[in-house]
């Protein structure tokens, strides 16, 4: 191909980074924090480049038609520090997290791949413990780890180990769960208390001591979703709560579904010790990370049935009906506080940062 000045210019324009370079010439931690900067990166750089109808739906998993059946596919990378924390470890997280993303589109998880990025010098015993934890987690969720990859990087260039897992699951005919199905009048159900994972990790990482040991909520969600689907509950949208917490999940759903969501603060369950830690650190539990909770949006007629099924799976912290989907097309999440006044829930820039006083 001959490259003349004109076409060369056009080509270069086509390759220009869509995020203004003068604003973010370097990647910031906030670009992975589950907030507005991450969303900007995904939409302006990844979606713009990889543009296709499946990706553009921005669901937790991609649902793919293969001949007459539907497969769900998702991927996630795990970089948690410390590798072991109260209530879980990087291995169980890497299995449950990916299985949960499959479950959120109603899929039955079947297979996982695993990619290990190991730092030179990592103790073999640590790796063994993580692998055993993955084995147990895979057995518990009924998935098989069927392919993998191992890379070792130089000492000092990683945090011990990183794990990537990719999952494949089967979506039964007739199941269609996603923001596009959200309807006004639907109820918003949260599967239990919120904010435990983020606070448990922060407590260990920063050496914060509380009277009790906070445990992560890290747990698999495929079984409960399977039972919900099989019971005939009409699930409109599911989303597991991860970085950015309950607030980010609801804001994303509202944005994708183009539907206003209204929730009540007093209906949301937050454990006493999580609340206490959030008060001390100046964090809002609505934005703190979770690893074993999900939000379900469904017609009111099925809410009681759904609630009793979820309660059976998570008896220690019952599900809560926290709000409803309102009439209209405005992508906005509002919260009614204890005084009955309303405020808008806003997507944070990145992760919440503890404050001075």
């Amino acid at each position, binding site marked *: 191909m001959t490259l003349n000045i004109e076409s060369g210019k056009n080509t270069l324009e086509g390759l220009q980074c869509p995020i203004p370079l003068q604003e973010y010439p370097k990647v910031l931690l906030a670009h992975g924090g589950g907030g*507005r900067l991450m969303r900007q990166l995904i939409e302006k750089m990844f979606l713009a480049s990889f543009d296709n109808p499946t990706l553009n739906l921005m669901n937790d998993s991609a649902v793919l038609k293969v001949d007459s059946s539907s497969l769900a596919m998702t991927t996630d990378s795990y970089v948690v520090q410390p590798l072991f924390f109260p209530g879980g470890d990087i291995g169980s997280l890497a299995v449950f997290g990916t299985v949960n993303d499959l479950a959120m589109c109603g899929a039955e998880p079947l297979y996982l791949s695993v990619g290990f990025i190991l730092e030179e010098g990592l103790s073999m015993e640590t790796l063994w413990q993580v692998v055993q934890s993955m084995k147990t987690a895979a057995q518990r969720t009924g998935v098989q780890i069927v392919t993998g990859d191992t890379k070792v990087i130089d000492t000092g260039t990683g945090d011990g180990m990183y794990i990537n897992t990719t999952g494949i699951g089967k979506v039964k005919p007739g199941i269609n769960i996603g923001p596009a199905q959200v309807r006004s009048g639907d109820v918003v159900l949260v599967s239990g208390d919120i904010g435990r994972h983020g606070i448990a990790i922060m407590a260990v990482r920063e050496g914060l001591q509380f009277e009790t040991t906070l445990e992560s909520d890290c747990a698999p969600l495929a079984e409960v979703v399977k039972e919900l689907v099989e019971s005939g509950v009409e699930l409109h949208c599911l989303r597991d709560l991860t970085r950015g917490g309950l607030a980010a999940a609801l804001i994303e759903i509202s944005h994708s579904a183009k539907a206003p969501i209204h929730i009540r603060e007093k209906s949301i369950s937050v454990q006493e010790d999580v609340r206490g830690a959030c008060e001390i650190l100046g964090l809002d539990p609505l934005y703190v990370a979770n690893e074993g909770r999900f939000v379900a949006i469904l017609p009111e007629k099925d809410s009681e049935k759904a609630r009793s099924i979820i309660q059976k799976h998570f008896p220690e912290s019952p599900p809560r009906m926290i709000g409803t989907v309102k009439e209209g097309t405005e992508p906005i999440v509002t919260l009614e506080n*204890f005084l009955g*006044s309303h405020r808008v829930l*806003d997507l944070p820039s990145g992760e919440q940062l503890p404050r*001075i006083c």
Partner: protein
Amino acid sequence: MKYLDEFRNAGAARYWAKAIERIVTQPWTVMEVCGGQTHTIVKHGLDQLLPDEVTLVHGPGCPVCVTPVELIDHAIALALRPKTLLCSFGDMMRVPGTERDLLSAKAEGGGVRLVYSPMDALDIAKANPDQEVVFFAVGFETTAPANAMAVYQARQQEIRNFSLLVSHVRVPPAIELILSSPQSRVQGFLLAGHVCAIMGWEEYEPLIQKYKIPLVVTGFEPVDILQGIYMCVEQLEQGRAEVTNQYVRAVKRAGNRHAQELIQKIFQIIPRQWRGMGNIAESGLGLTPAYIDFDAARRFPVKAIPCNNPSDCISGEILLGLKKPDQCSSFGTTCTPEKPLGAPMVSSEGACAAYYRYRNNGSTHDLKY
């Protein structure tokens, strides 16, 4: 958490709102000094519970917001200095310096550590003897005792690679600046409860004599603030001017003498530059001559870069209570938490951040870039 829940009780909040309505007969303007109180007011919509006669204006009590850009540039330069770790609370990370913020300096490989306490920074210094560890000591009188303790301990333990980049400010001179401004409409103040927990309120009594204005030591929960407003309006209606204490569960007139002694041992009162508000006499704390070795600004001087406070940022007027964030033409347009023109948009105690986060009333600018 009973201790907090009883101060977030809807019945009690409405009781005080009604009580204010019952006693008010004319318009009054009350300023809450502390940014933490501003956030409580905006988050819970407390101003919407008040009768029309009572106007709240937001004060300068956001230490991050008033830290001069030159000091932020200094902190960033230290973070980028070889073999140096700059330790800071999370609040400072996104505050814009002249060319970048601390998070960007971190992304560029700068030594930035987010800590929860100055004592954490001291531990980092102990664990990294080959690095210079600088703690960015920002705050009002509230954080001064802990920062003083870190310096005291560093001296006791002979930790020589530890120092403070000090940006401490004091509340009373800022209140006096507002009271002496001809533009100010403020007729009563809610004082910051945590500052008074340390300092007590004796040092505010001369202000009462001079300006004949009520001051109410107030806490941070919704019921605290509504009760504080009631106590302030009650004085205004009765023509009284006293310091009264709403925050009785935490504050005594004398304050915390031990904490004050520690502050006086390590710090001395100096004039200080406030971002957007200018130089205010006796408004800051700096290290005393005996502890001057711990002053990072002296130990590691940097060449000042010409700094420009953006002309379309009205943070000075916001901090003095002359304007509210939504009266700024840049608010939510050219100034957002991602692209802040001034610190009040990114500090967790900043009034602009509170309005942006809780008050974007029906607009969907939260998902626009």
